[in-house]
């Protein structure tokens, strides 16, 4: 399991290759049948005028919160490995914000764990996004749909 909160850009392809190689060579060697990744990318605004996105976070709490979500995912589903990388700082449209990868013997577990991690990262990890456009800077509001997405995991608990 690897968790990274970083300023630096990263290459999702290289991360996926490394993650799969880790699954193939580690102590769960031979047990991985399914690998799911999610990559979050800075979308442009509807009017196409997004200059940048600035991501602020709470150093210390961020890493702890993500580790807790990953531990919870590992307790709920049979996983062989998982990975979370999340950037902070200034990003431009098209750049990768973050990535989650999950590995499991079976695909249902890998998909569920990746979606669970994404839902918690969206609404429970201390990150805040600010959009910088020609007309100014604005904090992104939390979406009701993201909060609602968490409900499906509570029902199963």
């Amino acid at each position, binding site marked *: 399991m690897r968790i990274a909160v970083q300023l630096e850009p990263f290459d999702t392809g290289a991360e996926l290759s490394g993650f799969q190689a880790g699954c193939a060579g580690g102590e769960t060697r031979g047990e991985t049948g399914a690998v799911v990744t999610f990559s979050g990318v800075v979308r442009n605004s509807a009017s196409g005028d997004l200059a940048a996105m600035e991501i602020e976070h709470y150093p210390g709490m961020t890493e702890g919160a993500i580790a807790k979500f990953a531990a919870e995912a590992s307790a709920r589903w049979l996983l062989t490995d998982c990975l979370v990388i999340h950037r902070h700082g200034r990003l431009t449209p098209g750049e990768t914000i*973050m990535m989650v990868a999950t590995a499991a013997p079976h695909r249902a577990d890998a998909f569920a764990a990746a979606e669970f991690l994404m839902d918690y990262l*969206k609404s429970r990890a*201390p*990150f*805040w996004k600010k959009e910088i456009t020609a007309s100014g800077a604005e904090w992104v509001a939390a979406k009701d749909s993201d909060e609602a997405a968490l409900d499906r995991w509570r029902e199963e608990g």
Partner: protein
Amino acid sequence: MIEVLYFAWVRERIGLPRERIETGAATVADLMAELSAREPRYAAAFADPSSLRVALDQELADFDAPLAGVREVAFFPPMTGG
């Protein structure tokens, strides 16, 4: 003495990212009331608790949570990661 941290627009409204505060507040809500009474910038930041979240020693908490033994309180808007 308690370390108080602010993030995102809470930080911007209060005008600083962190400060050490001498307080006898028993709960988070008490601390918010105390600070709001001190200066308008706190009152502005804490005006609508439904748009705020709080963490005590880096764990999400409720506004009625006690501050006894807590070293670090953080105020911020709902998170927007991912």
